[in-house]
């Protein structure tokens, strides 16, 4: 693996001499690691354990991409980013992909020149309030003080929501999720608003979870997904289809347990065969080998397995699949066909 030492600074001159834009995929292969931007810490989505090993739902996607590209799910450099620094890190090439619960919006896609390569979690902005307030709807929040994590789209949605409904509120902006929870728990604000997934995670950690209610209103669409830079379509395709492979695998019933078997024996279902590289050469079209999807799925399992392990109902976070169920189960997950 290539490792830069501090003297790398001294190679500015050398780098400047021959820097023609190279393809991201080639860069990653040459480097031997994937640089993936993740949250500095969001329960269930990205967190480092006592050994410094990153884990979580967003992190799993990075690992899947690394498995596809480098045949090594551990060959990922995780770069923790704050909501303020994430886009610059991506624009400057410091990271190859951003998998940090980032909302897909028009301006981010078009004006900031990024490419959202899919949606790995359909979220929406919700509110949590103490039960004793007796509030049943977000429309009863006129005059409340609301904790928000600053630097995110939630700030803008909140402004729009209260403006549209002609209500007043007192924004209490807080730098990080952890800090905001502490403040909400102490009663420094009446309401905490953020993505519903994070609210559920937060509620689970209160001393008395039943003393807090998540209001039914979801005031915004927050499609969260991985992001790459504009301009390198091959790389965008790899990230997009890695995610699609995870989703399609669940739909087709491919799991980490049976993927090796299915790939070795082949099946009667041509789509499974195409996905796992038994038929056709889809991998080669992406600039990878034909086993790529097998590696992606065997790393941590299909979308459903990842969901269950990191944020599903068996975890302390306990999120239901909801919108994130397969389209066949009434959700929004709908991977384009592998054809």
């Amino acid at each position: 693996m290539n490792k830069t030492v501090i003297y790398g600074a001294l190679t500015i001159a050398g780098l400047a001499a021959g820097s023609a834009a190279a393809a991201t995929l080639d860069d990653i292969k040459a480097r031997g690691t994937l640089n993936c931007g993740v949250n500095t810490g969001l329960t269930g989505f990205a967190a480092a354990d006592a050994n410094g090993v990153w884990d979580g739902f967003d992190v799993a996607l990075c690992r899947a991409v690394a498995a596809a590209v480098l045949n090594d799910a551990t060959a990922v450099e995780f770069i923790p980013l704050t909501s303020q620094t994430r886009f610059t890190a991506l624009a400057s090439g410091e990271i190859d992909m951003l998998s940090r619960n980032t909302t897909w919006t028009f301006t981010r896609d078009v004006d900031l020149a990024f490419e959202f390569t899919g949606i790995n979690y359909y979220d929406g902005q919700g509110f949590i309030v103490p039960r004793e307030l007796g509030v049943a709807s977000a429309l009863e929040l006129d005059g409340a003080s609301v904790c928000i994590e600053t630097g995110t789209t939630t700030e803008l949605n909140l402004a729009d929501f209260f403006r549209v409904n002609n209500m007043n509120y007192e924004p209490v902006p807080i730098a990080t999720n952890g800090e905001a929870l502490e403040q909400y728990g102490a009663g420094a604000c009446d309401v905490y608003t953020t993505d519903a997934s994070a609210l559920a995670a937060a509620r689970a950690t209160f001393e008395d979870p039943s003393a807090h209610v998540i209001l039914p209103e979801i005031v915004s669409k927050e499609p969260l997904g991985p992001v790459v830079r504009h301009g390198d379509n091959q790389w965008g395709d790899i990230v997009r289809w890695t995610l699609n492979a995870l989703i399609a695998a669940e739909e087709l019933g491919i799991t980490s347990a049976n993927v090796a078997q299915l790939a070795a024996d082949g099946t009667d279902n041509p789509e499974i065969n195409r996905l796992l590289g038994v038929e056709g050469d889809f991998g080669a079209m992406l600039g990878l080998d034909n086993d790529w999807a097998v590696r992606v799925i065997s790393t941590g399992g299909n979308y459903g397995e990842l969901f269950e392990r990191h944020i599903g109902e068996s975890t302390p976070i306990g999120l239901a699949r909801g919108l994130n169920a397969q389209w066949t189960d009434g959700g929004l997950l709908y991977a384009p066909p592998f054809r």
Partner: protein
Amino acid sequence: MSDTHAQTVAYVRETMLPQQEPPMTQSGAVRWMRENLLSSPLNILLTVASLWIIYLSLAALVPWILNSVWDARSLSECRQVFLVTGAPGGGGACWAVLQERGIQLIYGFYPADLYWRPNLTFLLFFVAIAPVLYPGLPRQMLWFTGIYPFLMPWLLWGGSFWVPLLVIAGLVVGYAVWRVLGAVSGLLAALAAIVAALVWWLAAVPALNDGIHRLSAESRTATITAEAEARIERLRPRLADLEAQRESLRAEVSALEAIKAEAYAPITEAVEAARAAAILAYFEERGLDPESEEIGPTQRENARHEARAAASAAAEDPALADERATFLAAVDELTTLRNEINRLSSQITLMSADISNADSRLTNLAVMPERQARLTELRAMEAERLALVPRALRDLRRVDAAPAGTDPADLDALRALLEVRGEMTTLTNALNATYKDAGRIGLEPVQDREFGGFMLALIIGLSGIILSLPLGILLALGRQSDLFIIKAICVGFIEVIRGVPLIVWLFTAQLLLNYFLPPGTNFSLLLRVIIMVTFFASAYIAEVVRGGLAALPRGQYEAAGALGLDYAKSMRLIVLPQALKISIPGIVNTFIGLFKDTTLVVFIGLLDPIGLSETIRASTDWQGIYWELFVFVGLMFFACCYGMSRYSLALERKLSREHR
């Protein structure tokens, strides 16, 4: 003598009277209190106020610290322990988080088997700084002080042993040029020496470094391959073994979990029942309906408070003693198991990284000849295609940078050229990476991302100060200079840096530094931060050194002039040694300030102690833990900074005595 007096003069007492105790009000504690605490009404008031403040802080802190839990695996388990033991006031600190994450707060994600390297670096720092602080030590030790700045990054980041040597050689090159040209002109020599050293560092070092790595890699390909294969062979079974161990431990854990849950159920049932009853009783006593909306938060809080006492009492019920003991024993055992599993996991992580490294090294070595051949091929192609591109377009790096109206054929030629160049860059990078990895003789490299915790704060602070010293001294001299333009540049630099908060500079490092450097330059955030902090510190150091220069008696400058020394000599031999000596306390204080300010890097996503506490709080086990981490981080900072400030104060006193 007294004998004679005693015999001759009758009215003189023969023996001393035994000493009497002074009156009660004039001695011991009472007098001390009268004089020191109660001497005037204002003083009495102040004393009472102080005692009240002390009481308040202790009343808040002591129960929290005393009712603490050290053995638990998560915050919720801490709360379970509080519930089971019936801790008064609902429990206190959950220090268990430090048991699991304390080391991480200090070393960040640095590989556990390499902790000796930062430790050694830190120890050597004291060896390096000793001759500066204690003039009694042999002067030869200063050589080590000079080498240390080059040794430190090598020890921390790793890499081949010749890298620091090559960098040091730059100084030798500069010195040689200076000696040769010194005979012609001092000014010219100084300029030429700087240029020579820069050329060496920027051009020769990378090329030489790559070259040596390549030589080393190519000459030892067979050995390296064999070694990597052997390593994989050796580690695979051990890895499997460790994983099996971990699995068996995990099985033990689930068994214990069941025992724990079984013991916990009756206790929590009893406690919840007692709590609910207490709350009902509380409202009943006041004639309130517990469901009523009328009841305010303070009432509810009071009710909960009341209920806590009842819950404590219920938990301490002797009938539940067995369950309690089983539960606590299970928690202890589980924590020990968790620690053991963590230790194994850490080994497994390191080992699998090791295997994956060896694996990728083998692959890279296997395709090396192929890649080299392709590169030669590409070189020929580049020359061919270059000939087709008009001269005016040859330096362009992007097709769309070509002026409007360029012939489409030329554009196509340019596109073809750029394609080849792009592939060449990638290939060269890949080959260089292989050489660097396979040909490395020295320490295992550590990535920037693995730095964190107090180590990160120390590294940023220390490298900031060490690197900023030369620049700071130059700026200080420039600010004192008679040359108008030099002075203006230095004053401008210092004031701009000092006029803008560090956090803005850090955001500049994060968001903008890449704009200011040539396209394609990309070095890690940590390095960018160190560069920015160096500039930042140099402005402050410059002011400190300027103070030292100003404090030096005018006569020293004049005497140096009278001896016929030129500017450089008089500064080097007379002025700076004295001025820097007076500046040491100021430099230490600047360092303390900088060390504290390193906490700001949390805002740009580096994992300093505060950033790490955020990360720790994001894990499912420890979400919601707050004060314990801050208290730990605060105490660590206090210990470091207080020690240094005491030292700097002592030094200041010593210097002022010497100066007199």
